[in-house]
Structure formats: structure tokens, C-alpha cells
């Protein structure tokens, strides 16, 4: 128990890189998105035909490209945490932010395409959940970009670990969200 005190008093969270509060946030986020995924799965089970029809209106290419963009961005972050040179770390984070921006632009084009076809958040349950889940995720991409910006501003090791942990969570959620919403038949 005394040993716990010396390590910062956060218990198991002290073993993780970055600020323990970030991990509390990450766990909370995973709970929320987990609940959304569960809701999506159950709703789909209740209405497989309707969900299938609406899903067919999605373009898997947008999501596929965005998956590659986001994972690449996450890779740059991972390298930035490991690198010794501060300048190099800053550059890598800038690259990660830029790719986050690309993700955002593609997302906006995809949303615009849906709106042009008269599809919105109130179209049906599938699209309500589609827009809520991808929308919440999009907000986290924007928030993550701000965090990465803080990483450029103060490139201390613990800061880098903290902001990159968040960014990897954004990755992780997308990697689960994409197949669930776009691909699973």
C-alpha cells in the first residue's frame, strides 16, 4: 500500500504512460462508444432489413480511406513519442494533425454527399446512430487535434504520452466503428 503512495496513488493507472486522468477519460470514452456500439448492434438485430437498406446507401470508400488516414496519423504519433529529437517530434505531431484534418475534410464531403441525397440524422434509426456515432467521433478528432497541438507547444515526454494516448483512442474507436457501421452485413 505504501508503495502505491510513492508511485502517485493512482493504482494500476500509474503503470500506463501519460497522465492518469487521461486514462480515466479514455475509459469513460470507451464506455460511451461501447454503449453506442451495443445500441447499434441491438437496433440492427431488431430491424435487419431496414438497417441493411440504409447501410447500402453508405459509401465504404470514404470510410476506408479515412481508416488509412487515421491509422497513419496514429503511427506518426507513436513515432513522435519514441523519438529523441524535440524538433522531429514536433514535425511528426504536425503531420498527425494534418492527417486529422484530411480525415475531417473527407468526413465533411461524405456528410455533404448524404445531405445532398436528402439523408439526415432523422431519416431513420440507422442514420440517427450513424450521424451520432460518426459525429461524436468527429468531435473527438477535432478535440484530439487540439490536444496534439498542445503536444507541439509543450513537447515534454509526459505531455506527448498523454495527448497521443487520446489520439490512439480516437483511432481505436474508428477501427471498431468502421467495420461495424459500414461493412458488417
Amino acid at each position: 500500500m505504501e508503495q502505491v503512495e510513492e508511485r502517485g496513488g493512482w493504482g494500476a493507472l500509474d503503470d500506463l504512460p501519460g497522465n492518469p486522468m487521461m486514462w480515466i477519460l479514455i475509459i469513460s470514452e470507451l464506455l460511451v462508444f461501447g454503449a453506442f456500439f451495443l445500441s447499434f448492434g441491438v437496433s440492427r438485430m431488431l430491424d435487419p432489413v431496414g438497417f441493411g437498406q440504409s447501410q447500402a446507401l453508405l459509401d465504404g470508400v470514404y470510410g476506408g480511406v479515412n481508416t488509412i488516414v487515421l491509422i497513419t496519423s496514429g503511427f506518426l504519433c507513436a513515432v513522435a513519442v519514441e523519438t529523441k529529437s524535440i524538433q522531429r517530434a514536433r514535425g511528426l505531431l504536425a503531420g498527425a494533425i494534418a492527417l486529422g484534418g484530411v480525415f475531417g475534410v473527407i468526413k465533411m464531403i461524405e456528410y455533404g454527399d448524404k445531405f445532398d441525397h436528402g439523408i439526415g440524422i432523422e431519416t431513420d434509426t440507422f442514420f440517427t446512430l450513424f450521424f451520432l456515432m460518426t459525429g461524436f467521433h468527429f468531435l473527438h478528432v477535432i478535440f484530439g487535434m487540439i490536444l496534439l497541438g498542445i503536444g507541439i507547444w509543450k513537447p515534454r515526454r509526459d505531455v506527448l504520452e498523454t495527448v497521443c494516448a487520446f489520439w490512439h483512442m480516437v483511432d481505436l474507436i474508428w477501427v471498431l466503428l468502421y467495420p461495424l457501421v459500414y461493412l458488417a452485413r
Partner: protein
Amino acid sequence: MKYQSQKVALYYFTGALVLFVAQVLFGLLAGAVYVAPNMLADVLPFNVIRMVHTNALIVWLLMGFMGAAYYLVPEEAETELHSTKLAIIQFWAFFLGAAAIVVSYLLGNHGGREFLEQPLWGKIAIVIVALIFLFNLTMTVLKGRKTAVSLVLLVGLWGVAVFFLFAFYNPVNLVLDKMFWWWVVHLWVEGVWELIMASILAFLMIKLTGVDREVVEKWLYLIVSLTLFTGILGTGHHYYWIGTPGYWQWIGSIFSTLEVVPFFAMVVFTFYMVYKGGRDHPNKAALLWALGCAVMAFFGAGVWGFLHTLSGVNYYTHGTQITAAHGHLAFYGAYVMVNIAIMTYALPNLLGRSPYNQMLNMWGFWITTSAVSFMTFVLTFAGTVQTHLQRVLGEGFMDVQDQLGLFYMMRLGSGAVVVLGAIIIVVSLLLPGKEKQA
């Protein structure tokens, strides 16, 4: 007690306890009207009785929070209060203002928005009182030591004032009206009040268990972030059926389900601190209230809240006695109990005595807590029957009410026991008992 100015808390605690008794008496009266519906209908209509019951509750809880703040902030900041005189003026302004508002209710002068029925001058008076209070406290914290406990408390109290401003915005559109009404009601009790509660519990844990401040502060930050993370978007569980878009059903269901988590964290926090601290503090009653508060808040706010928070469930239970069950246990468990906890801890110190009347106080704890729990069960069963008859079978509202008579009688009975328990608590806190030999 380390600072003379902490003594102003005595005004607030006393005022709060007086209103506490008034509140439960009006509750008892309202319970009686449920059993004998036409009683007092001409003299004192039910809507006015209920208004006094709910408003008195909110006012005395706030008054207790203010007393708690005036007690703990000087101790945390390690300095005297900015102005004792201002704190006393503020107390009388608040107390007399609240009394004037009650008189105006009894005369039939009130608005129509639930809980915000205060006439405009009443609302303005509340804002002035809040500003004096916040000025006094903020100045104190600014000149002294800044701790996590006092900062979280201050953020919570400022939040109370800021969100109250939405009480002045009264749009004609009913959807907007309800939407912003919840910014006061929900963001108070499921947002900023929770911060106040957590900081008071944290203060009590530091004092009662002797666990290091650093450890307590980490828990406090954890609880605060969980509260805000879940509670703010949890507002969505009020946006199911008021005319707001359908996606709120998803947002509200998911985030408000997670609102259980901070309350559970408070249970783990308090019990773990007590387990870890191992200090044998003489004020056993205060510890009982602090632990009881965490547990009952978890059940009342957390479990009973979750009971009807999913939109698919709420579609049937909305506005039934299930809501009343949740409301009673949540307010008692979270905010009544945290108030009594800090009063039980602070009053002996303020009066310069050893902890006194502890036995009586703990009897008050068990009697009141049991009675409120019983009331909650009764109302839950009443709500379940009501939901089935009214919402599933489609029977008329009044026909169903007639069939709930037995439940309402049992509720009245438990209400009478709550009044008894409340009186015991107030007596044990205010009347000097035999000095316990140290």
C-alpha cells in the same frame, strides 16, 4: 474550529434546519392530500403545498451548502473569511427573502414553472444573495491557500449561480421553455450540486479519516470529471418527449446511464478512505452520515435514476410515481444527507464542544433513512402499478389514482416517520446535550 469567522456558518445551519422541518411538514401535508384529496382544497390548494415543499427543500439545501462553504473554506484557505458582516447580512437577506416568497405563494402569487415559481423580485433577490455569497467566498479563497476541495466547491457554487440565470429566460415556445428549464434543474442536481457534494465529502474524509490530502484530492478530481462527463450530456434524458429531436433519446439514454458511475465512485471513495485511514475519530455520527450519504445517493440518484432513464422504459414510466420515488430518495440520499453530515461534523466544533447527542443523532439517521427508503419502495410499487394500468392498459389517470389509495396511505405513514426522524435530527444537532467525556 480554527477561525472565528467560521462561526457565521451557525446562522446558515440553524436557518437550514428550521426550513428542513417546514419542508417535511409540508410534505406530510401533501401526503395527506393524496389520501384525502379534497382536504384544504379551497384554503391551501395542493399545488401551493407542493410548491412550498419543493422550494423549501431547495432553499434549505442551498442554505446548508452556504453554511458548509463558510465553515470549510476558511479552514481550507487557512485564513479568516473576507467579511463576516457581509455573510450575516447575506443570511438575513436570504432567509427573509425565502420567507417573503413563501408568503407570496400562500397568497397565490407565483409563476407556473415548476420549482422556479418565485416571482421576478424573488428571483432577482436570489441572484443578489448569490453574488454577495460568491464575492465573499471567492475573495477568501483568493487571499488564502488554494486547495482542490475549496476550488471544486467554488466552481460548483458559481455553477449554481450561473445556471440559475436561465430561470430568467422564459421563451414563449414551450419546447425551448422546457429545454432551458432543465439547464437550471438538471444541471443543478446532476451537475454542479454533485461537485458541491463531492467536495464536502472530500473535506469530511480528510478530517474524519486522516487520509492524506493528496489521495483524497485525486479521488475528488476523478469524481468531478466523471460527474461532468456523464451529467452534462445526461441532460438528454429530459429531452425525450418535450419536442426536441429524436436523437436525444440515444444521447440521453447512454450518458445518463453512465451517471451511475460517479455516484458509485463516491461509495468506493468514502469506504476506501475509512478503511485506509483507520483513524478513530470521536465524531462517529458524522462518519455515519458521510458513508450513508454516499450509499443512499448511489441508490437514490444512481440506481433509482437508472430505473427509468432509458428512453424505451421512460416512454411508459414518464411522470408516474416512479419519478416521485426517484426524486425523494435521490434528494434525501445525496443532498439532505451530505448537509446533515457536514452539520453533524461542524456544529460541535462551532459550539466548542465534544461531539454531543451522538446516540440521538444516529437514531435520527436510522429512522429517517428507513422511512425515506420505505417511502421510496412504496412509491416504486405505486409507480409500477400505475405504469401498467395507465400506460399499458390505457386506463384513465383518475381511475388509476383511485386504485393507488393503499400505497398513498403507506406513503403518508412513512412521511409521518420522516417528520419524526427529521425532528430528532434537528433536536440532536441544535440542543446542547450532555458533554461527552473526552
